[in-house]
């Protein structure tokens, strides 16, 4: 009864819902368009005065205690004039800066700033003096030659980072971190700036294309898990030996106990 009454009405029963949906789409769409526009404005202009001003404010609030108000350095931290945008993007983007605590080496932690803020800081520091820039996308997207990259990685990087990028020990508590989930941009920036105890691999030493190949190899290792099964941390014979003693022989000893147990 009620149904037939409604059907005879002028408006469609779903009209209210449709109107609501339409309104939401418009409002949301407009908001999205406006807000994305503002982000694009702030981000895409490395040299824009506004970006640099924002970066300076962030710097003075968060970094100047150690690095000085004008990034000139102090007893507690080095001068950042001329380190370039790449260095800031790496150190702040991976969460190493601001540093969690004094120690042999800055530890990775969840980044403290948004990507936008990291870029503002980076361009502010870059404006103080020329230095390595944040690499272009085609160098870091993993589109190079993995075989060449693997060979270069073995020759230049594996003695500290391990052939599979599992990381390794250095002296006095320092270490080469694992590269198992580092982004291409950060790998490139590490190579050109030499953070912590890492040497700088400049463009004469390893060309930008070779760096791209190395990133391609690391991406390949990240994206393709071992065809042999679980990797045991890619740590080599130590992990394998521990595994066979604890789990292999452990399981077998449990079985021997079971086999020779007296039946009740």
């Amino acid at each position: 009864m009620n149904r037939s009454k409604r059907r005879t009405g002028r408006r469609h029963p779903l009209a209210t819902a449709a109107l609501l949906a339409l309104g939401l789409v418009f409002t949301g769409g407009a908001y999205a368009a406006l807000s994305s526009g503002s982000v694009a404005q702030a981000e895409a202009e490395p040299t824009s005065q506004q970006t640099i001003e924002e970066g300076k404010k962030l710097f003075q609030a968060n970094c100047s205690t150690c690095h000085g108000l004008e990034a000139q350095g102090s007893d507690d931290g080095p001068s950042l004039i001329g380190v370039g945008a790449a260095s800031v993007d790496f150190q702040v983007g991976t969460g190493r800066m601001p540093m969690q605590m004094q120690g042999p080496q800055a530890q990775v932690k969840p980044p403290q700033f948004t990507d936008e803020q990291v870029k503002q800081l980076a361009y502010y520091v870059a404006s103080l003096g020329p230095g390595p820039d944040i690499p272009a996308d085609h160098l870091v997207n993993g589109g190079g030659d993995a075989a060449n990259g693997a060979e270069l990685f073995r020759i230049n990087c594996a003695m500290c980072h391990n052939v599979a990028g599992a990381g390794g020990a250095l002296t006095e508590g320092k270490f080469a971190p694992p590269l198992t989930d580092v982004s291409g941009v950060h790998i490139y920036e590490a190579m050109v700036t030499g953070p912590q105890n890492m040497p700088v691999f400049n463009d004469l030493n390893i060309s930008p294309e070779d760096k791209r190949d190395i990133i391609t190899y690391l991406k390949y290792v990240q994206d393709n898990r071992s065809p042999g099964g679980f990797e045991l941390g890619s740590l080599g014979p130590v992990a394998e030996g521990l595994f066979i003693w604890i789990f292999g022989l452990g399981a077998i000893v449990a079985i021997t106990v079971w086999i020779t147990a007296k039946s009740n």
Partner: protein
Amino acid sequence: MSTATTRSTAPEKRSFTAAASEYVNDRTGIAVAIKGLGRKAFPDHWSFLLGEVALFSFIVVLVSGTFLTFFFQASMAEVHYDGSYVPLKGVEMSVAMASTLDISFDIRGGLFVRQMHHWAALLFVAAIGLHMLRVFFTGAFRKPREINWVFGFLLFILAMAEGFTGYSLPDDLLSGNGLRIIDGMVKGIPLIGTWTSFLLFGGEFPGTAIVGRLYTLHILLLPALVVALIAVHVGYVFIHKHTQFAGPGRQPTNSVGPPVLPIYAAKAGGFMFIIWGVIALIASLFTINPIWNYGPYDPSPVSAGTQPDWYIGFADGALRLIPPGWEFVWLERTWSFNILVPLIAIGIFLVLVVSYPFIEAWIKGDRREHHIADRPRNAPTRTAIGAAGVTFYAGLWAAASSDLLATHFSLTMEGVINALQATVILGPIIAYFITKRVCIALQKKDREIVLHGYESGRIVKLPGGEFIEVHQPLDEYDRWRLVSFESYEPLMLRPNARGKITAGQRLRASLSRWFFEDRIAPVTRGELEAAHSGHHAAEVDTTHS
């Protein structure tokens, strides 16, 4: 015997099994062997199966290795890799490496078999190690089994050699680094070192001969020796009988346990399939030796975390623990004591391991046969020596992973090395004293239990108001286990036939004193009876109350 009965009653109605067994027996005379072997009893204890674990994993190594030889090419000729693994495409490498990659990526089931081979090899050596520890700590190496201990030791060494030669075959970066260390150790030997290295490698390292030579050793000479020695080793287990723990009815002259046929053979057969299953499961789930990560051998790169397989780890660790600066130039020659000291230390350790049965027998002056296995606590000094040896080995072993210990526990590399240096030198001494005290304490506890029974937890109030806890006496079977062990006393220093006391005798007497000065004698019948009569009085009291 069933054939005999059926033949006498109704020859035309014989079953197929009967006919078949008679056919075989008439031509091979196998019934004698089955009768003999089938009736052999094999004592049941979990630790007696460890040698079998080694044997069964060796069978896996043998079979999977045969499969691998179909496809592996032991050549160091240079080729450009053209298989399926993208990050190595076009890279120059030896045929050995390329064929190993082909086994891993382009031959059906190849990677699985390769991983089975390697995992089974690790398990083989690990099982041998645990088996040796069992034999040591239960004194199963005593007369008449000393020679079989030596054969077992040789098998352990051969297994390590098999492992190392196999590890070196793929000619990848890791194995090349391992060979380079061996090359360095050989070259560190004075006078003959350099010559020996050139002989091994057919010229300057790495040369183009080493993979072929190691292959011959790995698949021909060493396996032949291992198989032959296993036959001798297992043969002697049958000839000597297996040792057994003390228990009611267990005499040095007998062997108590299920007979080989049918029970033991069925158990061991099933156990063999379980071991194979465990190895197959591990091989199918866990990567081992991912040579595609390591890449082809090239003398310049060395990866972080380069280690040998676990059984060579103690030697690698010994090298790592030597402080810097132990090499010097003398007579225009470099004397590499940083290499010689670990080599000598390991050599002495291994010689002590192989000769321990003879040393102990000499110290005891014991020429009797021993077929009852010791409980470790009842030979405190031996157990303590074993614990010291294990600590020494474990310290060296851990040192091989010093870099991983540093990164994974956020320690400094130097701190780890220093701590392990201390462990290798002081650890064995500490382990010796702690173990000896623990053994003696356990023996005292056993004695207490035999004499006074075990604590029942039942508290009884006596009429006089005194509370006592009732001790429950042991039953005879449990008591037998606790009282039947041999106790030795230090040898007396006596003049020999010529009326003299030699230096050898003095040494022996002092060693014997060291071995047996602190000892707990097993409970004698007299002590037991005395304790029991006292006990009965107490029990009568409690029952009356």
